[in-house]
């Protein structure tokens, strides 16, 4: 949704500002007919959005006020589920892990992506390099889970290589204390290519003469990045930041793959809010707590919204015209 408002700020501003407040009715025939057609054209999208997104969210909000196993009758709980979340140390851990992924993972991803932008703009065969970088993003997370079991086992290829390089006691990658690191690592690895691809598309649009001018002024590679690349694709960067926020909060298949074992769920220390929701809604051999699950889902939805709004505020710049 944010991308839609982004591509043509002038139009959205007009719509948002409310046409009634601006200009007398019937200012210009074109304007008038545009205004008349606005709802006719947007109604289908609005209806789809309402049915597929707003209604479920509303239903979830309503469910979150009840204790419900999905089968029996709902029991009114008021804000009880939210109180439970507040008191539940596991939810607090989950929230902490979510934020850690969001902030730490995000920083690492974007630092690497920026570094790659620096290199990729100037290198030969950059399209090929970009495809290679993008590739991990196409691979299903489950493949990583299975591959990691082989690659990172105590005598696996990774540790063999490390030993060969002279590390006599390489880490036990798959041990539970490294869970969060492994999850974060995989996430960064898959996401970097994805964001690099988007950012590079923006970089390609920057006219060469700006770089040439900068070079003539004696700017080095980093200065060109700082004063040309960064401001010129700032809008795209801020969209990427929002995309990262939304997607990083949702991951949970990676946690299940790395942390889950044959007979039990991942240790609670590795949970994030999405996994918390999943475990409450689809527990193994116990009663689903759909009220609590939806309450947790709404809390993480609220978290995403809050983060997105703050991020958009911080990253707002006047668009650069060229």
């Amino acid at each position, binding site marked *: 949704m944010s991308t839609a408002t982004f591509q043509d700020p002038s139009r959205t501003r007009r719509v948002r500002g409310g046409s009634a407040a601006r200009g007398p009715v019937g200012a210009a025939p074109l304007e008038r007919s545009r205004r008349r057609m606005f709802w006719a054209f947007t109604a289908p999208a609005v209806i789809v959005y309402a049915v597929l997104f707003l209604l479920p969210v509303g239903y979830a909000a309503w469910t979150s006020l009840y204790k419900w196993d999905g*089968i029996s009758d709902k029991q009114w709980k008021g804000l009880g589920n939210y109180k439970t979340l507040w008191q539940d140390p596991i939810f607090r851990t989950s929230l902490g892990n979510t934020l850690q992924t969001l902030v730490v993972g995000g920083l690492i991803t974007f630092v690497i992506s920026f570094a790659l932008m620096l290199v990729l703009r100037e290198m030969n065969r950059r399209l090929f390099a970009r495809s290679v970088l993008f590739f991990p993003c196409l691979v299903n997370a489950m493949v990583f889970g299975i591959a990691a079991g082989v690659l990172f086992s105590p005598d696996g290829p990774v540790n063999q290589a490390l030993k060969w390089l002279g590390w006599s006691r390489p880490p036990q990658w798959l041990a539970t204390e490294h869970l969060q690191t492994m999850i974060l690592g995989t996430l960064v690895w898959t996401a970097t290519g994805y964001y690099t691809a988007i950012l590079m598309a923006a970089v390609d649009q920057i006219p060469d003469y700006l770089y040439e001018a900068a070079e003539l002024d004696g700017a080095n590679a980093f200065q060109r990045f700082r004063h040309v690349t960064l401001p010129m694709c700032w809008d795209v960067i801020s969209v990427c930041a929002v995309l990262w926020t939304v997607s990083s909060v949702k991951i949970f298949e990676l946690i299940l793959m790395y942390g889950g074992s*044959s007979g*039990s769920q991942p240790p609670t220390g590795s949970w994030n809010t999405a996994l918390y929701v999943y475990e409450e809604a689809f527990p193994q051999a116990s009663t689903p707590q759909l009220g609590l699950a939806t309450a947790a889902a709404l809390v993480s939805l609220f978290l995403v919204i809050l983060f997105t709004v703050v991020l958009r505020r911080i990253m707002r710049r006047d668009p650069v015209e060229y």
Partner: protein
Amino acid sequence: MGSTTGRGPRLLAIATAAVLAVGVSACSSGKSADKAGAAGGDSGKSGGSFSYWSMWRKDEPQAKVIQAAIDQFTADTGIKVDVEWTGRDVSKKIGPAMAANKAPDMWDQGADSIYGTAAQNGNAQDLSAVLDMTIPNDNVKVSAAIPSKYWDSLPKDPKGGQHWVIPYEASTAGVFYNAADPDVSAAMSSAPTDWDSFIKVCDALKAKNKPCVASEGEDSWTNGLWFDYLLNANGVNFADLANDKSGATWDNPAVLKAAQQTEQLVKGGYIIPTYTATKYPAQQTNWAGGKAGFLINGSWVTAEVAKQIPSTWKYGFMLPPGATQPDSMTFGFALTKNAKNVSQAEKFMAYFLQKKTLSGISTEAGNITPRTDIPAPAELADVQKTLGADKLRLTFDGVAGDWNTKVWTQNYLDFWHGKTDAAGFVAKMKSAQVSFWKTQS
């Protein structure tokens, strides 16, 4: 399978969950099961039909055994069976399906799972009528063919009933070893009877540079069996311990003793090295390859390693020394809350328990049946003998589900990996349990 709820379903679970994204609950899948009496059978036979969602996937041996029985059942009675091979996830799907009134008449799962998802909330029908039915051809009542202890150990549904499942497969958990392994036979002439002698056996193996115990370090269920049995040995009921909202039961010295005995395995260096850093089934494979002496697991493990063990292998089985009662996990049929074709489904339950039909669970699927007159596969003969005990108890005394996930797994793994000591483990469990029960109102 790791717990009775299953090893297989994670892929499916992830696929299901991925669709749900941030987790608004979606409703059931599956086709409508309400076909009451729609299909007429041959004239002269009773006819009708019922629907059934199975915990087995179509390619599993149990599914083949059940499918063969269904074919014969339809031929004999004219009752058609609308079966769907759902896999272990059936326990996750059955609740929403019941809510949407699209559930099948009959389903099957581990008794713990049936209880957790349905029976404890009164969503499984009473099957006492089946116990009074006569099994075709064998001419014995169901209650005579299957020992009542299998039901006596089950928790009660809201109406106080225990007959919400008709078991067709039985299992227990315990310590498996290769009696033909010279290191093991040198370390013990007969199975040790108390914990200290077991530790001595471990010492003897350690002296030969052989780890005593193999363990999938990531799995709190199999590794937790040690603690579960040691609690039993020390006279503590796991369910009483877990269900104590005040957590005070954890202060019982017997609990600490069981924890300290478990800790001996960890601190003594008896567990196969690297156990904390591998994924299932790496260590089970090591054990099958003779790299460790003992492995604790459910009795399905013999079927899992069947292709890995050498031909010289000779199965030995014992409970962790000191334990007084074997635990029991059964798999069986249940009826959903609003099942419409009750009589047809019940007829099939009794039909499937026929000796010639049920034997397939032993001969083809390599598992034990609850009927004592069906011999277990050779490698499970000792296990069947253990299950012959007068009284059975449930694994973890029936504790499963949310408590396991939220209180047990993280704390026990920290303990099993040596990050906390016995006293620290007990203290952490106590406090985690108190906050858990606060969130369960």
